[in-house]
Every structure is written in structure tokens, then in C-alpha cells.
């Protein structure tokens, strides 16, 4: 019924991660600092900004 054949895995190096972050921030039309402030308030300026925060915060935050 379903298969995993259509799942694609993209491995990113540190440079790729930085590029992904830049692309996400560009889409949100926000800086990382602006997104952080919006997240702290629990309210984002747009839907795109909210989604961008999910991605960027996951890639820039320290692990553990």
C-alpha cells in the first residue's frame, strides 16, 4: 500500500546548514534575532515566520 521509496535524505554539511538557515530567514523576511523575540512572545509576524523559527531554531540551538 505504501512504500518508503519516495523518501529522500539530504545530508548537509555545516556550510549547507548555514545556507538552509539563510534561505529560511529570507523566506520569513526576518532576522534570527527577530524570530527569537517573536518565539519568546509566542506570537509570530506571519505563518512563514512561524515555520522558519521551527527550522532555524532546530539547526542553530545547541544540542542536548
Amino acid at each position, binding site marked *: *500500500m*505504501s512504500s518508503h521509496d519516495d523518501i529522500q*535524505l*539530504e*545530508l*548537509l*554539511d*555545516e556550510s*549547507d*546548514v548555514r*545556507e*538552509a*538557515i539563510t*534561505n*529560511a530567514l529570507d*523566506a520569513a523576511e526576518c532576522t534570527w534575532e527577530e524570530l*527569537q523575540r517573536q*518565539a*519568546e*512572545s*509566542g*506570537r509570530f509576524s506571519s*505563518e*512563514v515566520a*512561524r*515555520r*522558519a523559527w*521551527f*527550522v532555524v*531554531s*532546530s*539547526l542553530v540551538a545547541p*544540542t*542536548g
Partner: protein
Amino acid sequence: MDPRNRAVIGYKIGKNNPLGETIPFTISGSQAPIHLDFLHTLDLDHSGEFLTTSRSTYTLRAEDAETPIVTYDFVREPPNPYPEAHIHLHGQSDALQRMLDSCGLAERKPADLHIPVGGRRFRPCLEDIIEFCILEELVTPREGWQDALERGRHEYHEQQLRAAVRRFPAQAAEVLTNTGWQVTRLPDSPS
């Protein structure tokens, strides 16, 4: 997936499209009445041994694939006081807006509210969102959808239960002992 074993999962997501795209909920190729977009981010847990969800967000959108209807977010250790697992209801609600206005929060919208849902361990999963769309007759499912959803949901519940037992081993041992199991803690087991 990045060099620090972190991963972002989404539909048609990638370095050049880091926010992914929206999935039309249709099996016939016709105009989908509802769309789903989701992002799921994974990280290693504190032990460095288990992959765990650090964030997830699911949004059901209208037929235009843009207008949000409901958003279900999970944010592990959020940067604000709101619950880790919560729902945002989009759109206008006169009653909710009056409530916000009367609380001196006229600048806020109903969608700004973080409605708690289940907490970290007992929050709904993606299968629950899909099932909601099917049971409410918003989408037409394929034959055998129940089994497919139940398999995924069962796996999710088992993972959550294992995590809960790791978090509360004494309580787990107590329940097992009360139901006839013999549980012995090894001297060098982690607390």
C-alpha cells in the same frame, strides 16, 4: 540531516526549500478540500543515544493551500511559558475576540492562544490528525486506512511509553509489581 545528527523532516524539503511544501489531501487528483503542511525536527536526547522529536508543527489549510485552519505545535523546552504541545485555532471567533478584548488583550487574535493538548508524552501524533480529517469526512481515504494509521500510531505510543518508563522507572516498577511482575533494580542501573 546535519553533521550533529539533527534532522528536519518535511514534504519536498531541502537546503534550498527549508520550509517544505503543503500536501494536498486527495487521492483522485481532483482539487483537494484540505491541505496539510508539516515540519518535524529531530535531535539526540540527553543520553545521546535516542533520537527524539525536538519540534513538530502540523497545519491544516483550506482548499487554497494557504489559509490556515488549525495548527498543532510541539516545542520541546519552548522559549516562552506556553505548553510544549498546543493547538492554535485560526479564523475569526466573535466570542473568543470578545473574551480577549474584555481581558485587555484586544491586540491579540484567537489564533494567538496556545490551547494545551496532552503534554510531551501524551500528545497526539500525525496519525491522529489524519484520522480527524477522515472521520470528519473532510477527505476520502484509501481502502485499508485504519490499519495503516493504527500501525503508525501503535509504534508512536510504544515509543512514548518507553520514554515515560525511562523518565519514571520507579512508577513503572510499582505498576509492574502490582500486576504480578517481579522487578529488581540492578545496583549499577541509572537512576
